């Protein structure tokens, strides 16, 4: 066995210079990509869709700017501006045009856009009218599905507006055989096509498109080689000149051919990572098991004395900086749902190899060091933990956690592997899983996982139960009965299950419509060239070319629904202190409490819309008056007291997150109302649905669309995040919270669960703090918990950062399945993070 080096290697000056340079500008929207692909698509009307896509990709590779920045060892950008972003009008563009004026000033993830760029994009967008995936998807949805979306029961906004992403390509294959190798493979498969084959038309042109994309990627790298040579020729600094010459040599060889050195492997990796995100706007392009597929190149160079560990560390650090250079503009609501300019490039270390042995190596440690060195949100560093994970690696990871960066997230092999096997993965593939985006496990390079397929707000069906399926005067869900019909708790819970089943069905309809639209309008031949078995099957990943195909929509709000229904069961059915009507009345009146400004605004908009729909004119003054009335929630004092008394009563009821079996096991049942119906369904790529239980950061904006709920949650306030207890309701310490969460069935949620914990920094103090922290993770995992992540920043620090953002530009916190710069988050999301229960029991 190889000796594993675990010692820290210091960060070089170069890395800090690269970081300072990267963050020296404002994120900017650019139009070059949109212009290039639009021109290409105009010229290829009427051709095979695969050819149209590969020609557009070739045009990008030939025309996108080539930018090599000072001090870079790893090169390749897709924008002029630092952290700039390109747009992807082929998926959707109306929202962007509508937000041109506000995108620079909005609270979540603002982007600068010049008037000139805006005009260019307006021009380009004309072509795409009626041609986007988004428009096609809408036309494919059933009318009742559109109603449910309009009423915010769920959202499929992510893929509705953007590319799919959420994939881990076969990086290892490119490192090994290069795009020339993949080209040859596709060519050989194309030669097997017989003109009499039933799928000749699709297969032949798909493979042709793959071949063209391989060549185009090589062209792009050669342009960098050329640029580096030219810069070297003009460079007076002898050291830098040498570096540029090396860059030129490397870019000549990779990704065209197999990597000959660790430096080439890093560069080849980066081109793949960059170009997948140039072909499509899908995010969560996850490097996966970087420490595994990069290791052979590191080891070979190290053994041959061609590289030192210090040099290898610097190259990894350079890759880390690059991973932070990519950016993406999203619509305003999605920007809140994925706040923090996050690209969710999940990179995972440790865990088992395909034969079930521990896979930890030098690079596992060096990846953790790299995250310490750059102290930036990307990559979303994750760590696989199993019973055989070395303690040293746990300590190294805990030291990173201690910095407060929210990395790494910890994943449990002992539950994820069996969960994936239950979904049809081969044992070796399941053992080789990586994590995509936030928390979604899959076998990289072989899967089109469609993770993150929808956000399903589990509180909205509960609201429908209270209103016999009606929302804002529209019959959105089935008629599940009037309140007086629910004479037993079972009947009430059955009504909830019916609302869930019905709306989950509509969500599936929506996802499948979006899926079909991508299949038809946006197959991705470049990405597909690196996903097994697209070439063998002669099909793009969007059409079911991958070995494993899933759709993974996520539900959230378990804690709120469990706490709420538990409270109703106690107060209405067991002690009979209240009637269901009284509870419903209190909910309608927000427990007699005033509304937040944002929620009152939403209500005002609804009222104004309704008045306008009846044909009445309404003045600005009248709108202000409606808003004032709604804000005041002016109800009769006696009633107000009554509602508030109920709220106080509910607050004293047992809550999920305190290791109380009665309520926790009910939480398990509530989670099943989502996870079980979901797994019945199939997607158009020949794969199945499976559920995730996590909200990314959508628990905040989607909470704003949700009225008061019987767990005592006020209208418009955030929903519990992931499988975590509702904010502030877990008061028995971290072990109790973890025990409650472990009582959910994580195995069935094979698309991932998310458990957030917040610690005061004092909790990880000293060796004993670190040891206790590691034991906490291990013991949660012993109980088959799936995922754990931590924020280690004191509440005081976060409050101060809200007041003085200028002093905290580098403060990285864990949001949901990812980390982000705290000061870039919207105020409401900042508040949500601050309000998560802080565990300081050490």
């Amino acid at each position, binding site marked *: 066995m190889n000796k594993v080096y675990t010692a820290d290697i210091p960060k070089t000056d170069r890395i800090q210079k690269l970081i300072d340079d990267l963050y020296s500008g404002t994120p900017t929207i650019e139009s070059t990509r949109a212009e290039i692909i639009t021109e290409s698509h105009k010229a290829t009307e009427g051709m095979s869709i695969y050819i149209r896509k590969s020609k557009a990709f070739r045009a990008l590779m030939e025309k996108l700017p080539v930018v090599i920045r000072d001090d870079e060892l790893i090169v390749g950008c897709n924008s002029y501006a630092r952290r700039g972003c390109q747009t992807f009008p082929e998926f959707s563009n109306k929202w962007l045009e509508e937000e041109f004026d506000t995108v620079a000033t909005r609270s979540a993830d603002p982007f600068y856009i010049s008037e000139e760029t805006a005009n260019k994009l307006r021009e380009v967008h004309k072509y795409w009218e009626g041609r986007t995936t988004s428009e096609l998807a809408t036309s494919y949805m059933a009318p009742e599905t559109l109603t449910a979306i309009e009423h915010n029961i769920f959202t499929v906004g992510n893929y509705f507006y953007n590319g799919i992403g959420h994939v881990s390509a076969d990086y290892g294959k490119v490192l090994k055989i290069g795009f020339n190798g993949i080209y040859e493979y596709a060519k050989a498969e194309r030669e097997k096509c017989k003109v009499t084959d039933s799928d000749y038309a699709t297969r032949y042109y798909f493979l042709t498109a793959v071949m063209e994309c391989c060549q185009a990627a090589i062209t792009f790298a050669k342009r960098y080689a050329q640029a580096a040579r030219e810069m070297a020729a003009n460079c007076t600094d002898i050291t830098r000149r040498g570096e540029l010459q090396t860059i030129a040599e490397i870019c000549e060889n990779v990704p065209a051919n197999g990597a000959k050195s660790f430096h080439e492997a890093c560069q080849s990796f980066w081109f793949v990572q960059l170009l997948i995100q140039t072909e499509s706007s899908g995010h969560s392009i996850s490097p996966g098991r970087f420490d595994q597929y990069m290791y052979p190149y590191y080891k070979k160079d190290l053994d041959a004395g061609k590289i030192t560990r210090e040099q290898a560390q610097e190259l990894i650090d350079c890759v880390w900086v690059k991973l932070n250079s990519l950016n993406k503009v999203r619509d305003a609501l999605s920007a809140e749902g994925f706040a923090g300019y996050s690209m969710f490039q999940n990179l995972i270390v440790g865990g088992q190899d395909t034969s079930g042995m521990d896979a930890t190596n030098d690079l596992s440690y060096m990846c953790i060091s790299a995250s310490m060195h750059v102290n930036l949100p990307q990559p979303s560093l994750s760590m696989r933990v199993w019973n055989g994970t070395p303690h040293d690696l746990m300590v190294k990871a805990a030291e990173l956690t201690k910095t407060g960066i929210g990395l790494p997230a910890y994943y449990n092999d002992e539950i994820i592997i069996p969960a994936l096997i239950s979904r049809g993965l081969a044992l070796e593939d399941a053992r080789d899983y990586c994590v995509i985006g936030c928390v979604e496990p899959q076998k990289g390079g072989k899967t089109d996982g469609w993770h993150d397929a929808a956000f399903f707000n589990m509180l909205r069906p509960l609201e429908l139960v209270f209103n016999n399926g009606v929302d804002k005067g529209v019959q959105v869900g089935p008629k599940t009965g009037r309140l007086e019909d629910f004479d037993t708790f079972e009947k009430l819970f059955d009504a909830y299950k019916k609302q869930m089943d019905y709306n989950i069905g509509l969500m599936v309809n929506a996802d499948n419509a979006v899926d079909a639209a991508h299949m038809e309008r946006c197959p991705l031949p470049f990405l597909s060239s690196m996903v097994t078995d697209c070439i063998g099957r002669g099909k793009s990943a969007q059409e079911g070319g991958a070995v494993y195909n899933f759709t993974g929509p996520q539900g959230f709000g378990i804690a709120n629904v469990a706490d709420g229904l538990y409270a109703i069961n106690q107060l209405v059915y067991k002690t009979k202190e209240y009637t269901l009507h009284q509870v419903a009345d209190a909910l309608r009146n927000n427990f007699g409490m005033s509304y937040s400004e944002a929620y009152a605004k939403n209500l005002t908009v609804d009222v104004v819309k309704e008045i306008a729909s009846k044909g009445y004119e309404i003045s600005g003054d009248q709108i202000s008056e409606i808003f004032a009335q709604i804000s005041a929630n002016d109800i009769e004092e006696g009633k107000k007291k009554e509602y508030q008394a109920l709220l106080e009563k509910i607050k004293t009821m047992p809550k999920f997150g305190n290791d109380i079996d009665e309520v926790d096991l009910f939480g398990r049942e509530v989670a099943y109302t989502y996870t079980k119906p979901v797994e019945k369904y199939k997607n158009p790529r020949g794969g199945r649905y499976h559920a995730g239980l996590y909200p990314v950061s959508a628990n905040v904006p989607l909470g704003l669309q949700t009225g008061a709920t019987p767990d005592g949650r006020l209208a418009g306030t955030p929903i519990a995040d992931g499988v975590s207890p509702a904010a502030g309701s877990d008061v028995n310490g971290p072990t109790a919270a973890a025990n409650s969460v472990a009582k959910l069935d994580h195995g069935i949620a094979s698309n991932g669960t998310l458990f957030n914990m917040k610690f005061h920094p004092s909790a990880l103090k000293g060796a004993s703090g670190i*040891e206790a922290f*590691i034991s*906490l993770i291990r*013991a949660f995992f012993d109980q088959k918990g799936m995922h754990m992540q931590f924020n280690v920043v004191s509440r005081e620090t976060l409050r101060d950062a809200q007041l003085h953002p200028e002093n905290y530009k580098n403060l990285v916190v864990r949001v949901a399945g990812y980390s982000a710069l705290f000061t870039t988050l919207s105020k409401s999301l900042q508040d949500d993070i601050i309000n998560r229960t802080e565990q300081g*029991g*050490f």
Partner: protein
Amino acid sequence: MNEYWNTSGRIFDIQKFSVHDGPGIRTIVFLKGCALRCRWCCNPESQSYEIQTMMQNGKEKVIGKDVTVREIIDDVKKDMPYYRRSGGGMTLSGGEMLCQSDFSYALLRCAKESAINTAVETTGFASYEKIERMLPYIDTVLMDIKHVDSKKHQEFTTQPNERILENAVKIAENAKKLIIRVPVIPTFNDTEAEIAAISKFAKSLKGVTEINLLPYHSFGRDKYEGLGREYLMGDLPSPTDEQMQRLKAVAISCGLNCKIGG
């Protein structure tokens, strides 16, 4: 099933996930009632055996609850996975667990029967017989030695220290592991000479190798107000880190391992 499971006693809190009072991740059971009245006590609600009401954040809170050993052990057992991974377990604290010695004995016995590691945090102020019968069921004894001067001890805690020091000698002879703890209280025992005297005494005890210095803090202050009592420590500041480091060096020079905090 033995009869000890049904023994009942009075507690005022159970705290999970503590890493300061004994090895690993522990659950602390706080028993109500204490024979000492230390001026600096940060849990004044623990002192009286009686059930009391204390004002907390403007609300009345009932302090004290009668429970059986079975109830406690069932609750403590919920964190077994954490004890297994960390070498932790249950710690009896207080108040003073010796003031309810039958209950404490039963708790410790039943914990051991349930394969739970045990620790006690004690003043050692009781007849030795009470302590002696518990020792086979205790893995770690954390015992306070607050001062070697009995007069000063009495002045600040209301009790002299002769019995405590005698018990310390006997416990050291018979306990599986004994760690000495010293609350470092300004104006009482925070000089190098006083810590040296305590350390020397600790070093003289058979098998004792470790001493913990716990710096004074005023977190308990609001509780005095909540109980309608006067806080006698006033605005006394906590010892500084530098001072604690100096005192630690003193303890080490006496031949002991020393940790600041538990």
